[in-house]
């Protein structure tokens, strides 16, 4: 009984997180907002559905595989989103969305090469 309730609860939670990811992909306006949705909501929804998959009881091999996949997803989704956001920032994609631009004064000239002050020798540092 409790097991069934937990199964349904985690399934509904995962469906809600996925639906909110889909809504956020539409309603958010910039890449960085979408990255926020694509890491938190997506990882939470996927982990919820994987937990709901594990609850009815399976063999040990299935449980180990699903736990391995869930751990891998939990680690790598944030890493790939971080890499994507960094690439978007360096290309200058909608930088005006970041009102306090905390990466601008970091002394790293390779960040934000295009829009504001294109230094003439920035290209040869990039390789």
């Amino acid at each position: 009984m409790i097991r069934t309730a937990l199964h349904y609860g985690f399934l509904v939670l995962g469906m809600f997180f996925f639906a909110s990811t889909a809504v956020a992909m539409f309603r958010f306006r910039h890449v960085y907002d979408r990255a926020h949705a694509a890491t938190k909501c997506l990882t939470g929804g996927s982990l919820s559905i994987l937990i709901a998959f594990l609850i009815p009881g399976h063999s040990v091999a299935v449980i180990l595989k699903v736990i391995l996949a869930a751990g891998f997803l939990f680690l790598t989704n944030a890493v790939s989103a971080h890499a994507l956001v960094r690439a978007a920032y360096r290309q200058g994609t909608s930088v005006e969305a970041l009102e306090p631009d905390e990466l601008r004064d970091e002394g790293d000239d390779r960040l934000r090469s295009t829009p504001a002050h294109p230094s003439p020798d920035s290209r040869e540092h990039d390789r």
Partner: protein
Amino acid sequence: MIIAALVAIIVSAMAVFVRLVLGPSVPDRLMAANTLGVMFFTLIVLLAGVFRTDSFLDVALVYAVLQFADVLIMAKYLNRSGSVVST
């Protein structure tokens, strides 16, 4: 109930696919592609439960690894300034 979860995942994936088509810049599309990949990964795991085929889990694991490598390679490619990709 599993079927309802499958339908919810597919509807969300279709909505994200519209963002992948519409996305104004290349990082938008890549973010939508990453989201689609994670959704299909979850779909494959649920299908392993529906069809009672444990080998689908191996498919899902390899799919997750390949998708991670794919997104990292694309981000590395985008990191070069002066690349062919316009924003």
